[in-house]
């Protein structure tokens, strides 16, 4: 299957430029080329702060800017934003600081760099923090909506942005947040996914349809606060639910859906597609994802086994 694709990170700097206001700052940890925050640096050099390779101090400096009324976007790889500086992010959440984290290179999006650089734990690390919001767009329009939502929210936000290519779906002009049904052919199954796993979710959905199964694709746009009710209403009538995430199956989207379903008593069976409880390795990105549990084939097989 061939899809028209897009890499959202290419829109990071451009989107921040488009929504710029004079309280905004972008902070970098020597990766502005890779995260594309360089586009912001070019247009707003006075509001771009290069901090060198120092994630802990970088996040705390962003927090200090927020405490003086500014709106800082700390832009870095997912593992650095959330893992390298976790206690700094935690203190910003505790302080209810208006800190924005914008992460590229989530999950296995940079396959060749290997396990050290794969961000398979970031959702879990952010989801456990009180006051945090997690926004996961899947298209340039949704990225803009997510950044706008972060700007409109007084408090810490984490925006997870794909580096790997994701398919371009027809855009819906709906407000960003909660869940969105992005495709629907019937109610045998529901593919519930986060935006950076869109490729595997879409391929799995198409394979299932080729196999004569009919279902729904549901994007969870906000992983925190988790849209329990909206998601439940959109999956309660199907025969099997599969979560698809560019992340460990522990503590992320699959974990959140498990927690939601466990409180409902009778519910459809849940399959979790994503990285099992192992460290990954280097390889071409598509091959790494296929090896470590994230592909359309994994989605299709999981659902077929459950139906």
């Amino acid at each position, binding site marked *: 299957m061939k899809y028209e694709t897009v890499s959202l990170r290419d829109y990071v700097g451009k989107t921040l430029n488009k929504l710029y206001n004079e309280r905004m700052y972008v902070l970098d940890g020597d990766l502005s080329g890779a995260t594309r925050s360089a586009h912001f640096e070019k247009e707003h050099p*006075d509001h771009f*702060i290069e901090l060198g390779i120092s994630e802990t101090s970088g996040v705390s400096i962003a927090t200090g800017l927020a*405490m003086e009324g500014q709106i800082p976007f700390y832009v870095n790889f997912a593992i650095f934003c959330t893992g390298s500086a976790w206690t700094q992010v935690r203190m910003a959440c505790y*302080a209810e600081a208006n800190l924005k984290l914008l992460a590229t290179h989530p999950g296995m999006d940079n396959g060749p760099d290997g396990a050290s650089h794969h961000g398979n734990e970031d959702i879990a690390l952010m989801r456990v923090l009180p006051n945090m919001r997690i926004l996961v767009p899947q298209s340039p329009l949704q990225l803009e909506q997510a950044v706008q939502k972060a700007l409109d929210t007084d408090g810490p936000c984490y925006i997870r942005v794909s580096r790997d290519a994701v398919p371009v779906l027809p855009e819906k002009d709906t407000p960003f947040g909660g869940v969105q049904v992005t495709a629907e052919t019937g109610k045998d199954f529901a593919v519930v996914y986060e935006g950076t796993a869109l490729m595997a979710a879409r391929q799995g959905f198409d394979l299932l349809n080729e196999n004569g199964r009919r279902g729904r694709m549901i994007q969870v746009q906000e992983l925190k606060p988790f849209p329990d009710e909206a998601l439940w209403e959109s999956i309660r009538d199907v025969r099997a639910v599969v979560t698809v995430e560019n992340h460990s199956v522990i503590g992320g989207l699959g974990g959140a859906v498990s927690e939601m379903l466990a409180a409902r008593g009778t519910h459809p069976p849940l399959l979790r597609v994503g990285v099992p409880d192992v460290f990954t390795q280097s390889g071409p990105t598509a091959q790494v994802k296929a090896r470590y549990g994230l592909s359309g084939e994994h989605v299709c097989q999981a659902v077929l086994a459950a139906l």
Partner: protein
Amino acid sequence: MNAKEIQAQANRNRRVIVDMIHTANAGHPGGSLSVIDMLTAIYMTDVNLKESPRSRVILSKGHAVPAQYAVLHQYGILSDEEMKTLRQLDSRLQGHPCSHRLPQVDATTGLLGQGLSLGIGMAIAKRDTGDRHNVYVICGDGEVNEGQIWEAAAQAAHYRLGNLILVIDQNGLSSSGVTSQVMNNRDLAEKLTAFGWQAETINGHDMDQILAALGRARAWQEGPYAIVMNTVKGKGVSYMENNVAYHSSGIAGDLYQQAIEDLERAEQ
């Protein structure tokens, strides 16, 4: 405001610190008593709590927060009654500073090593918005073992933040023992100078020296300024001085009486 008046207020604040920790039967008296002379001086010379914007004071060594509460009590932000709620449920007086409960503490701290970076963010915001006030960050000498401090030290100098003033309360004792034996910092003023700071070392219990150093720090606009101050942990209470047991401890019974007598004698 002269040195004698500020020192007298600092001594009164010492009593407040001891009373708080006695009532709570928990807290960090040693590091609160070593920093209180400088903290009182900073507020009395450069912080108008009724103003906005104003100079900021980040207590990065957040465990010394009884000292900051004592100063806020001095200015009437905290009442006598509220001072008795330290470390109790629903109190604004958390065991470490919590700015969303009590905004006047300026920063939520407690996890050591993060405050200097917070100060850089505030200093950049003030510089860019034309706010001429200063940002003070107070660290402990054990705290500066933390790597984040040295990331921040490079960054503050790189951006030549003339409105940022770092105070290191070098009382020579951290939680488990003598700082130089736990992890030797060597000469902190020299290290900061090598990072591009203007830095000096003073006696942190000599109010004339404190005021003079603060004056030099505020006047220095070329970049960040560090005051490394040699202090005595537990300063003012005879049995606490240089005694690591009072890093974290309540103050009970006869020892409380002894502390009050020591401090009253100093006030006379």
